[in-house]
């Protein structure tokens, strides 16, 4: 259940119902709502077109969703000690490989689940501080069950950015950190990037 949902989370993030319009324009809650809402309506309006041309859908996700994410920060958290001494470019290369895989999954999930999943963004609940916060959402699954999906946000010079997804308490960053950190230390970052690029290492199934 959990891992299937790990996959759905990403997808789910794209299906916002925009329930709380009264939030500030640059708050994380508002960002999740507006961007997912935008992607959602685009996909539902052009479903046939995207089914025929999945690359266009990937471009859409890349264009609209990526600016919301701080993938380099996620990459650094995941690499942890194993990232010590690595060049900045290497870490960015690793981050790109990971995000390409994620975009691929998001896009596939959008096509498959766009009509079956509902996402509700819960209102901010006080644990907002100046640098770090989380946005809580609830995904309604096709079988009627609900899965809580949280997004961790941090404030960057470019505004709030998401860097972790937590599904039923399972953090994407924590989980992959304990897989990737030892693998990088054993085999080197290039080997891990290679495994990500060739699809041998699966994320968020």
């Amino acid at each position: 259940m959990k891992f299937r949902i790990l996959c759905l989370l990403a997808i789910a993030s794209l299906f916002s119902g925009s329930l709380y319009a009264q939030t500030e324009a640059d708050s994380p809650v508002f960002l999740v709502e507006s961007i997912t809402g935008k992607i959602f309506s685009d996909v539902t309006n052009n479903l046939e077109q995207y089914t025929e041309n999945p690359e266009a859908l990937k471009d859409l996700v890349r264009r609209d969703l990526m600016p919301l994410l701080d993938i380099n920060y996620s990459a650094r958290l995941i690499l942890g000690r194993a990232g010590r001494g690595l060049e900045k470019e290497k870490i960015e290369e690793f981050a790109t490989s990971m995000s390409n895989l994620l975009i691929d999954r998001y896009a596939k999930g959008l096509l498959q689940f766009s009509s079956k999943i509902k996402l509700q963004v819960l209102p901010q609940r006080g644990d907002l501080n100046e640098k770090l916060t989380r946005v809580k959402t609830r995904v309604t699954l096709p079988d009627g069950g609900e899965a809580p999906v949280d997004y961790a946000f941090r404030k960057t010079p470019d505004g709030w950015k998401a860097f972790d997804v937590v599904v039923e308490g399972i953090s994407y960053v924590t989980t992959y950190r304990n897989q990737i950190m030892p693998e990088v230390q054993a085999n080197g970052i290039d080997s891990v990037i290679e495994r990500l690029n060739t699809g041998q290492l699966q994320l968020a199934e």
Partner: protein
Amino acid sequence: MYPDLHKLRIIGCLVVIALLLAGCAGTQSRNTDPVNDPWEGYNRKVFAFNEGMDKVVRPIAVGYDKITPDPVQRGVGNFFRNLDAPVTYVNQVLQGKFKHSISTLGRFLVNSTFGLLGFFDIATQMGIPFYNEDLGQTMANWGYDDSRYLMLPIFGPSTFRDGTGRLADSFYSPVGRVFHGSNRWGLWIMRGIDRRAMYLEQDAELNSAYDPYVLMRDVWMQNRQFQIYDGDPPMLDYDLYLEDDFEEEDPGTTGGQ
């Protein structure tokens, strides 16, 4: 403790074996975050044993998943979930969550009757919230909040606290009261297959993992924490993940030890 004796004896044996083996526990894997898993050596052996068992169990679960229509499968899942309600109820009372316990009681009554022995989850349709509690969560709630990871044979991931709680919960679970003899065994096997079928989709992920043992442990431990906090655990301390790694780039994130 009449009808449960048999099952208890088996669980008891497993726990004793687990404890004996734990004496000769091995080393912890390096290069991951510190996790309360001092019995990792033993746990990995049980994990390997369970993986071996899975060679037999998985094909059965796959077959069950294939031939059973989704609504039926959901009904079976509902049925077993409903049987857990008394355990949840007792532990809600033990934790002083009286409001929740009334809801669990209501669910149990509605689903056991109108829901035809629990196959139909009418209570959810009526908007009665679902909770899940057990003695392990109760003990965590009472302050035993950090227990070592323990891989149970057949039952899978647990902690010392939760394994003990599970054993105690089985004393009063209705499964042993209502079903006797081979019926009970049939029920346990059916439940195992149903559980296994729910996790089929994760197999590819687990198999492609760098360290499947660690993946299962991390996922289970995090989700368990989530259950203990009733779905609202404290936010992770991400700063720790950067500690002594990127100090020069992130002067704001270096904390104490």
